[in-house]
């Protein structure tokens, strides 16, 4: 199958890249990606992917739009206040990018729906603002074997890394870095955030994800941290925690349901 003339023109600056070409663009058309959390990070990641021609996007968020979201959640405006973030984002992006098949899920990702929602995804983005949900996404991605790109931001600190136990098992999972009993001191609600700080991290997330979908080699096992005051990136190699409560017991064995703990053992974070 080839790219139509109109699409060739629309995506010409992407297709022009030797790493992309028509084949890469076609790969994007074929991809189904989930974005969990449609706040600051999710808004931008969703827009970049929809605009780039990703074929199918599922946006998952049960939050509603509030006035204090508007400085950084750029798809939303005053008249959207009170509406579901996921449904509003889908409406706006469907209008702007009719080639993208967008689906809104207005439920919170939970024990009941997580497997159904994230199974068969080529890639999952964690854009949530909730530590409990972050743990649940990590667990589910391990179970359904979907690569996960997780980013977080608060104040002038940003963090991003990829979890993929299939291609980079030695780098561990989200819980290897942040165990479930960790204490969260920084959320956007408690310490504030500037819009572009979110934009930097969302752009990195979208770029990493697109490279992955395009088959461009991505640096696995790297934790990247951004300091928005010093304008400084730092990187570190991720390590698997052999005693991790999520992935630790499965070192030399193939993945199976029974070896991964039930999610009821994971803590639930607040908003």
């Amino acid at each position, binding site marked *: 199958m080839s790219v139509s003339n109109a699409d060739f023109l629309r995506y010409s600056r992407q297709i022009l890249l030797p790493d992309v070409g028509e084949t890469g663009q076609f790969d994007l058309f074929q991809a189904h990606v989930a974005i969990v*959390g449609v*706040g*600051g*990070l*999710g808004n931008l990641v969703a827009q970049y992917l929809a605009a780039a021609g990703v074929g199918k996007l599922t946006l998952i968020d049960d939050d509603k739009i509030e006035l204090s979201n508007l400085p950084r959640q750029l798809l939303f405006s005053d008249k959207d206040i009170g509406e579901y973030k996921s449904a509003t984002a889908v409406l706006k992006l469907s209008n702007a990018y009719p080639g993208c098949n967008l689906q809104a899920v207005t439920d919170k990702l939970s024990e009941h729906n997580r497997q159904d929602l994230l199974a068969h995804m080529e890639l999952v983005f*964690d*854009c*949530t*603002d*909730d*530590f409990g949900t*972050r743990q649940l996404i990590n667990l589910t991605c391990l179970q359904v074997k979907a690569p996960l790109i997780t*980013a*977080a*931001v*608060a*104040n002038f*600190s*940003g*963090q991003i890394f990829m979890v993929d136990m299939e291609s980079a098992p030695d780098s*561990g999972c989200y819980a*290897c*870095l*942040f*165990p479930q*009993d*960790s*204490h*969260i*001191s*920084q*959320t*956007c*609600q408690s310490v504030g*955030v500037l819009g572009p700080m979110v934009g930097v991290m969302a752009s990195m997330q979208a770029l990493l994800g697109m490279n992955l979908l395009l088959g461009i080699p991505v640096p696995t096992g790297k*934790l990247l*941290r951004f300091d928005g005051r010093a304008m400084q990136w*730092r990187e*570190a*190699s*991720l*390590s*698997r*925690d*052999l*005693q*991790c409560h999520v992935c630790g017991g499965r070192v030399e064995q193939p993945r199976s349901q029974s070896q991964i703990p039930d999610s009821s053992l994971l803590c639930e*974070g607040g908003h």
Partner: protein
Amino acid sequence: MSHKISASNRSETSIKVMLNDEQIFLSSGLNVPGLLQLQNIAASSVALVRNGQVLPKSRWKETLCRDGDQFEVFALVAGG
């Protein structure tokens, strides 16, 4: 007993490490939780990188600070 050593009173057993780009002197034999406690850092809300590699929390207790170690300690961020 304090493991922190003032610049004017370094014994032969003192070691020098970097913590978030700051040089600090410690007595040898201090483990990672000891280092964090000395710096008044709550272990439950941070992750730690030692010489460019994440050190999983389950290994903190057994890991002793060595002369020349470079530590980065940072808070868990969960906002989106």
